[in-house]
């Protein structure tokens, strides 16, 4: 190709790129999203990113305020039977789908049946396991129609439970329990959630979705509370790299970021002051022990020694340094109706802690001549590496432990944790699905698939079961707290810190509320004119 022809080609290509995507003169909120939703099918979705978008376009029976208080949403009210096993919801007769069809109790029945139907292969199928027959439907022993959710009339929905589940109301805010528009499901089958087809019942509707780039929402004119929605359009920008997201915020192209890059945190705090919103978040960062193999099997002293040798204050202050709270329990503070018991040594001074740790280490059969050699596995990330290095040196300093750090790709680490063959100590975390201690404690039940340490304690399990059967909230709480106390004394995990949510929020955004769930519905936000 001759150079001038190449030049011509180049000019043509540049000009063809000028066609543009059409300007949006609407009041548009620009938000960052750390990855694409894997789907906007409420029952099939799994990630927090998908849930974030789904909370904007859909609506469950209940919802949350900007500050994280549970409030009626698609249901105007409800009654709970005395035994706590039957819930009757009264739907808003004025609720409408984005195409104008009324939202009925049958649509909720359809959604929840779909959730447990094996054919849907939904990730959150176990979420409503407390509802009558749900478990048997998931395994295929019963048809989806057997689910204990019934439409009494178009605006009355009854949910029957096998055991009292005080957190049921919180569960019903989760996108997996959202209703499905029956007409769409009939016409498009499982592909009903694609742009151009998706009919939803939330404050917004899906306008366009460019995978890897942008999810665009528009105001749902038929939404029952449309008058209260201030912002006309929402753009979720898919920005995988947190530094790219920060740059776009700096360039004025974003109103809200999904996070703040760890390395730039101090600089961002100095630069943006109040625009940086940091709040406690329902999640725990922990190191787990592989209890199925030596050296940690049947060795609680060694586990406790390692746990005590970690200076959590130091870790949260100078290693992560973003306002994380040091963790002395498994359930984070701030969970509703729960006061987490703290580990026995939390009140000791650093020196006392270390002395006791050394004694336990010796009792477990280790010492200077016979140091513990242990492998610590973590998934590759800057923060994880820094924490691992810090813990390695704390263990070496206090106990003389020789720890080898092994970083692995996330999927590799997951596979290793599940096999519990090669792992000794591993990094993991747990994020709450709803605001209740159960979402954390149930992880460590002997038969829980998420129980990576392979912790098994009959006493813990039976206390959890008694809590599950309890209608009385105070007694339930006591059982749960006792269960956690027993578990903490066994040291199957080293809780290191509780997460915080970190966002940059532009001063033009109003209505922002910090909450432990880190839910921020666009319908609660406003944009002032000065943008």
């Amino acid at each position, binding site marked *: *190709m001759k*150079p001038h022809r*190449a*030049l011509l080609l*180049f000019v043509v*290509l*540049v000009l*063809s*790129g*000028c066609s*543009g*995507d059409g300007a949006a003169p609407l009041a548009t909120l620009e938000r960052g999203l750390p990855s*694409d939703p*894997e*789907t906007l*099918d409420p029952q*099939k979705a*799994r990630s927090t990113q998908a849930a974030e978008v789904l909370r904007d376009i859909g609506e469950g029976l209940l919802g949350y305020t900007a500050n994280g208080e549970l409030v009626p949403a698609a249901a105007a009210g409800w009654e709970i039977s005395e035994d706590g096993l039957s819930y009757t919801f009264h739907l808003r007769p004025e609720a409408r789908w984005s195409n104008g069809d009324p939202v009925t109790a049958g649509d909720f029945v359809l959604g929840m049946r779909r959730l447990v139907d*094996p*054919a*849907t*292969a939904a*990730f959150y*199928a*176990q979420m409503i396991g407390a509802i009558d027959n749900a*478990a048997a439907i*998931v*395994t295929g022993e019963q048809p989806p129609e057997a689910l204990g959710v019934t439409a009494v009339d178009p605006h009355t929905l009854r949910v029957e439970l096998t055991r009292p589940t005080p957190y049921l109301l919180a569960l019903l805010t989760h996108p997996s329990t959202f209703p499905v528009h029956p007409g769409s499901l009939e016409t498009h089958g499982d*592909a009903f*959630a*694609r742009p151009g087809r998706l009919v939803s019942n939330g404050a917004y509707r899906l306008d366009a979705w*460019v*995978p*890897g*780039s*942008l999810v665009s929402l528009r105001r749902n004119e038929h939404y029952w509370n449309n008058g209260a929605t201030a912002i006309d359009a929402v*753009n979720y*920008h*898919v*920005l*995988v*790299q947190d*530094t*790219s997201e920060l*740059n*776009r915020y*700096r*360039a*004025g*192209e974003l109103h809200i970021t999904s996070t703040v890059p760890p390395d730039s945190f101090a600089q961002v705090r100095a630069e943006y002051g109040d625009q940086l919103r940091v709040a406690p978040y329902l999640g725990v960062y922990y190191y787990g022990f592989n209890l199925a193999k030596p050296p940690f099997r049947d060795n609680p002293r060694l586990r406790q020694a390692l746990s005590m040798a970690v200076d959590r204050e130091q870790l949260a202050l100078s290693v992560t340094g973003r306002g994380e709270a040091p963790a002395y329990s498994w359930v984070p503070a701030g969970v509703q109706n729960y006061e987490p018991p703290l580990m026995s040594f939390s009140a000791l001074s650093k020196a006392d802690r270390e002395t006791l740790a050394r004694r336990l280490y010796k009792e477990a059969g280790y010492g200077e001549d016979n140091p513990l050699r242990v492998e610590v596995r973590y998934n590759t990330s800057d923060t994880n590496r820094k924490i691992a290095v810090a813990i390695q040196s704390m263990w070496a300093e206090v106990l003389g432990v020789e720890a080898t750090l092994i970083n692995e790709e*996330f*999927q*590799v680490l*997951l*596979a*290793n944790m*599940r096999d519990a063959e090669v792992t000794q100590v591993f990094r993991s*975390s747990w994020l709450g699905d709803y605001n209740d201690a159960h979402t954390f404690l149930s992880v460590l039940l002997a038969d829980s*698939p*998420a129980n990576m340490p392979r912790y098994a304690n009959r006493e813990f399990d039976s206390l959890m079961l008694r809590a599950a059967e309890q209608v009385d909230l105070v007694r339930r709480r006591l059982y749960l707290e006792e269960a956690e106390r027993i578990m903490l004394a066994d040291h199957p995990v080293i809780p290191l810190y509780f997460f915080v949510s970190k966002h940059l929020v532009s001063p033009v955004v109003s209505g922002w509320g910090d909450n432990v769930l880190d839910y921020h519905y666009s319908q609660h936000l406003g944009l002032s004119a000065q943008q």
Partner: protein
Amino acid sequence: MLRYTLLRIAGAIPTLLIVIALAFLMVHAAPGGPFDDERVLPADVEANIAKAYHLDEPLPQQFVRYLGKLLQGDLGPSYRYRDYTVAELIGAAFPLSLKLGAMAMGLALVLGVAAGTAAALNRNTALDRVVMAFAMTGISIPVFVIAPLLVLLLAVKLQWLPAGWSGTSGATRYLLPVVTLALPQIAYIARLTRASMIDVLGQDFIRTARAQGLGGATVIRLHALKPAMLPVLSYLGPAVAAILTGSVVVEEIFGIPGLGQFFVRGALNRDYTLVLGIVVFYATLVVAFNLVVDVLYGVIDPRVRYR
């Protein structure tokens, strides 16, 4: 030439098959699966999902299933983008990557050849040294360093250009990614052109042309440029490969929904079908492109004969 082309196409089929088989084995050999997560699923739920995606079948059976679908032109559904098929994702992403790549390539050719020629004609002068110094820098600095620097300067500080892709429109959003992508290639092509041009300018036929009284510019344009382009032309294949790999980084940094980004995300998420689909697509493209370059070579250089 037709016989040669047909033979090359026939030879490409086993190559592609081997690539597909290797890629299939490798994505499945990587630990973990597309649906693994810290929130481990109950066994029943996991079984339902594995069944829905045929992941419960033995690997050979999955491979045969995949090949069968592939022969019908079906790349399967994406595991990560559950509302989309792999073909849809590639169909949306490839034109964008192609556009970016073509623009970067065009820019690299124009600037690279021009700078290289200028340097060759002014050999050992200040101009030559400046151009070659820039070229050396361009080759040495990786894309993932240049891109954030350009963004920081032109988008964040000066706010002349958008810092990202999504939600912006117009030609300006192409500028940073294209320049970032083209820079190393401009540098490489400039160096190639300079060396080759110096070589050609010393040849007898150039002296003959000059002896016939042709002007300097005419000699370059009519006689020197074409033979001097041969090494650049052979470099086009590797250059396309370099732009493809460079696009992976550039697309990720600028958040451009191109093939590169899907490839990386697909690999990390163990989106088997998406990764395989892109490998098959790229492999076909590379084989085809090499073929085209080989055929073009004969068109430009009459000394090359096909057998």
